[in-house]
Each structure stands twice: as C-alpha cells, then as structure tokens.
C-alpha cells in the first residue's frame, strides 16, 4: 500500500478515495437508492417547509429525526465513553482491540446525528446563534446538549486521530495526539455523562404531557445508566457484524480476542441492566404509580421493562455463564430494542398520551432516518478499509515506541552525571 510519504499527500488521498471492493453489491444498491430518495425528499423539505415531510403537529412538535436519530441514536454511541474508560482510565488492556472501532462509531454517530438534528430544525441556518454571538440561552438544556455535542465531537476526533495519523503517516502529529489522549478521554467521559443525561433532561419541563409511568425527575439519571448498556450492546452487535464483514481487515489478535471480549461485555451489560432495572423500580415506587399498571399504557410499560430490560439482563447473564455467543447476541438485540422503545415512549408514544391517537411517522421521515444511518455505515466502511482501526498499527509505530526508553536512559545518565558533579 502506498503511503503518503512515498507518493505525496494529494495523490495519496486521490488513491484512497477510489472505492475498494465491488461497487454493485446488494447493500450498496439498497443504500444508494435510499440515499437518493432521501435527497429528493429533503429538497422538498427545504422548499415547502417541514410539514410537507414530517408528521409533526402542534401537539407533537418533534419528528422521527430528533426523536430517533438524535435522542435514540446518541444513546447507542455511549459505547465510546464506557470503552475508553475501561481501556485508558482502568487500564483494561483486554478491550484495546475494540477501542478504535468504538470511538470511530461514536464519532460518526455524533457527526451524522447532529446533521439529522439540523434537518429537523425549522431554520437550520440559524444554528450558528447559540454557538457564537449574544444568543446564549444558558438556562436551556438544549443549549448545554448542543455545546456538549460539539465539544464531544472534538474530543472523539482527537481520540481517533492517532489512527488517522497512522494512516497518513504523520509521525509528529501522532505523538501529539497520543499525548492528548488521557486528557481528552477524561473530558469526554464528563461530557458524555452530562449530555446523555441531558437528552433526558430535555423532557423535564414536559411533566404534564408525559405519562406518569415514564416521567419522573430521574429521567436524566435513567438515560445515563441506560446509555451504558445501550452503547455496549451496540458494540457487541457491531463487532459481530464487523468480524465477518471486515474479515480481511482484522489482524489476528483481534479475531482471537473477539469471543472473550464479547463475554466480558455481556457481563458488564448484565450488571448495568440489573442496576437500571432496580433504579426503574425505585422511581416507580417513588412516583407512587401503582394505580397506572392496570391500564393499557401500564401493560405497555411492563412490556418495555420486563420484556426488554429484565429478560435481556437474564439472557446476558446466562450467555456469559455458558459462554454462549448466540445468547449474548440475542440479549444485545433485545436490549437495543428496549432502548429504542424507551426513548420513543418518552418522546412520542407516552407524550401527549391523553390525546387522540399515536402519530405515525410518515414514510418520508423513515426514509430520511434510514438514509442517515446508511451514510454513516458507508463512511464507517470507507474508513475501516483504509485506516488501521482493526488492522493493527503500521510497523513504524512499534519502532517509535521502542525508541522511547533509550532516550530516557540517556537523559537519566546525563542527569546523574550532572548531579554528581
């Protein structure tokens, strides 16, 4: 593979931009068609206004793009702060093989879901206002969430930049990026805590409009805890897919570590879901909501909590105990569905529950939602096939790392010499 040093940077980029692998595959065709249709829909969204495309109403102001892509999608990007915590703060080297892919997934998630948010804004060109200028609505939770998104995207980019520098062979930048990693990871974890819970805090003022079984003052806390196992469940599914789809890209160390990483993640998910379950019950007791259980919404609540939190928790536990990957993957899918259900319940289904009926999103909303995800996957694939995410760092990285101790020894000898004189 040609490197930037050998052929000059511009030619390197042009070479990398060429598609690798077949262009006509079922996935590419479906993704391509969806994206084209979405582009066509978006043209009308900007020409005729939001109402021509989304089924939002005066009572239900947020459509699928905010409720699904942003509020639900960001929960799944929570894998990054958990995995970087385990690898960089707690030094659990076991998870290092998946760190880069997880950070990449989160980085792309935030970039594309912030994009989806722009689509759902009435006047996207004014998004500049809360960022620069005198329009800082600091009392607003959304202000905090928006700023955290920006700062966190920056943090994720810096966390991912060692991979980029290895791809482009920018040796000095790599050193700088690696030095910044710990600080940026710490900052990222603090930011994640706040904006994961912040997405829940957006709904705190909607108290009279959300069904009491889902509304409580603890929504931010529950959002944060659930983002932990949401992110990890998504990492499990993502790695399951990646280790098959990107077989050629994966170095041997990654493949042989896959099973044991999945098992450990399953255990973390089980414990987190157990805690989350009990927090949910505590909130239920605190809200004195017993009377609501025996209603249609009550049954729906039980479906969400028992069917998609308790049961996957138990399945994770069994999967871990019996080292059964199939059980672990099933539990991960159920946990993911549970999170989607929870987020959509609070934002759309149990929102304005006392009114007419459930507002189904239009097919156009769904197409654009899915198209955003497709674009994210395509970019993800482009990067995996070119950058050392799974491939293992290029050889010059190990050489750089071996150089270090010698320099320190020389320094030390010099210091001793000097201090002895």
């Amino acid at each position: 593979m040609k490197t930037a040093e050998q052929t000059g940077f511009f030619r390197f980029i042009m070479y990398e931009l060429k598609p690798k692998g077949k262009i006509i595959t079922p996935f590419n065709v479906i993704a391509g068609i969806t994206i084209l249709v979405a582009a066509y829909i978006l043209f009308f969204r900007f020409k005729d206004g939001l109402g021509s495309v989304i089924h939002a109403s005066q009572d239900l102001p947020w459509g699928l793009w905010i409720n699904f892509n942003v509020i639900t999608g960001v929960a799944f990007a929570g894998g990054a702060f958990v995995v970087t915590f385990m690898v960089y703060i707690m030094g659990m080297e076991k998870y290092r093989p998946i760190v880069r892919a997880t950070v990449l997934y989160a980085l792309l998630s935030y970039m594309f879901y912030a994009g989806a948010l722009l689509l759902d804004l009435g006047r996207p060109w004014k998004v500049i206002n809360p960022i620069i200028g005198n329009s800082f609505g600091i009392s607003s939770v959304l202000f905090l969430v928006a700023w955290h998104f920006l700062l966190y995207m920056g943090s994720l980019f810096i966390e991912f930049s060692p991979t980029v520098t290895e791809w482009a062979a920018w040796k000095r930048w790599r050193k700088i990026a690696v030095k910044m990693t710990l600080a940026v990871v710490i900052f990222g974890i603090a930011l994640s805590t706040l904006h994961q819970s912040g997405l829940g805090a957006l709904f705190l003022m909607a108290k009279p409009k959300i069904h009491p079984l889902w509304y409580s003052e603890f929504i931010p806390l529950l959002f944060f805890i659930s983002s932990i196992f949401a992110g990890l469940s998504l990492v499990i599914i993502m790695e399951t897919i990646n280790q098959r789809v990107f077989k050629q890209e994966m170095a041997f160390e990654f493949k042989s570590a896959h099973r044991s990483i999945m098992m450990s993640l399953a255990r973390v998910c089980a414990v987190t879901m157990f805690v989350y379950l009990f927090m949910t019950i505590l909130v239920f007791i605190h809200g004195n909501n017993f009377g609501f259980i025996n209603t249609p919404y009550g049954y729906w609540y039980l479906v969400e909590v028992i069917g998609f939190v308790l049961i996957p928790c138990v399945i994770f536990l069994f999967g871990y105990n019996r080292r059964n990957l199939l059980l672990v993957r099933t539990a991960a899918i159920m946990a993911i569905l549970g999170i989607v259900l929870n987020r959509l319940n609070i934002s759309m289904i149990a929102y304005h529950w006392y009114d007419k009926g459930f507002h189904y999103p239009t097919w156009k909303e769904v197409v654009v939602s899915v198209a955003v995800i497709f674009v994210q996957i395509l970019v993800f694939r482009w990067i995996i096939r070119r950058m050392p995410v799974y491939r293992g760092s290029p050889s010059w990285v190990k050489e750089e790392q071996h150089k270090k101790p010698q320099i320190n020894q020389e320094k030390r000898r010099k210091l001793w010499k000097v201090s002895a004189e």
Partner: protein
Amino acid sequence: MEGFSRIDIFATKGTEYLFVIGYLVILILFWQLSTRQVALKRKIQQVLGILSASILRIPQGMFYSKNHTWTHLEESGAARVGMDDLLQHVTGEVQFSGLKAPGEIIRQGDLLTEIHQEGKHLRIFSPISGEILDTNAELAESPGLVNEDPYKKGWIYKIKPSDWKAETSSCYLADEATSWAVKELERFKDFLAVSMKKHATEPSMIVLQDGGELLDNTLAHLPPEVWKDFQQEFLGKPS
C-alpha cells in the same frame, strides 16, 4: 396543594428504604451468579474443538520440561517420557519415526523422536539423560494414543535415568506446571500471530468462524513453513 389539608411529600420513603435493602441483598446474589464458572464450559469447548487453557490436561505429579515433554519416575526406578498435552493438541494426529531402540544412551536435550504429518515434521527433545529400556511399540500402529492419553498409554520411552535429581530440578511440577502451561498457550498464540503474518497465511484457517477461538490441532491446518518456525522459534527459544 391548596394549603387547607395535610400533605405528605415523603409518603413513599419508607417503601423506598425497604426496597433498597432488598436490592442490596439481591445484588449480592446476582453478583455471585455473574461470577460463577460453569463446568459445562469445558465440555462445550472440547466438543466444539476449541483449544483453550481449560481443556489442557496437566497431571500434577509429572515433571514437564521446557521442550514440552514430560517425565515420570516409576516404583521400579525407570522413568517414562512422552509428549505433553499442549504439544499433542497443537499438532494433532502424527506419525512417529526415528524411534530409538532399547540399549541406546540418550542425553538431556537429545533428539527423542521425530513426528510427521503430511510432509511436515517436528523434532522432539528428551527431558532427561539415561539408557533406553523400552520403546512403546503400539505407537507405530496407533499413533493416536499420544492424542488420546499422552501421559499413560501414549508414553514414548522407558528410560533408566542417569541423573534424575539434577535434571528434573529444572523442570516444572504441580502448580508451577499448570501456570506455565497456560502461559505457553498464550505464547503459542503470539507466536502464531507473528509466524502467520510472516508467511502471509490466512488466519481464518485456524480460527473458529464464529467467535475467533483457536481451533484444536492448530498446526495441522498450517503450512510447513509455520512448522519450521514452530521448531526454531517456539520450541527452540523457550521462554
């Protein structure tokens, strides 16, 4: 709310405290559940043909030498020697050649025997010195004995040891042997990573399609260059 009758904003606190106590108790149970290792795991791995530390047989009373051979002193004063379980798992079914005859003298580190598999071969070295008393004749007909039962039926030679104490002092025994074997498995995995990269071998050949665990009889799926490396790098430079 209006201020004309009694309200209680902490009405549920009592229930909540009881609930928390219940949660803490259940947490202990859950935690124990989540750390339990089930014995099934071992069996499943054997059935699936996975090579991992938990399926290795490491009888505690044997002396294991760094070249993955074992030796065991019997009541009669003769010592038996053979291949250890890890080596046998790694190579799979092999044929023996160059077996020595009774009466020959062998030194520690000398060639014990050569094993063959479809054009690939490996030299095994002796853990002790002494005079060969007997060779296991059954190995010629059923070499699979060494896979089935490497420590009893799969013995290779009976040797009268000339310097048992001194030579076995550098061998591994009991607990030490177990942790050494586990480390050797890890070292084998690392060795594979390097060797396969060198010879551009497709990793999926030795890794389970689903899950990435190492396949049993790993070397059986790999080309002769890797066997050469195994001889020189892995067996030749013991850790």
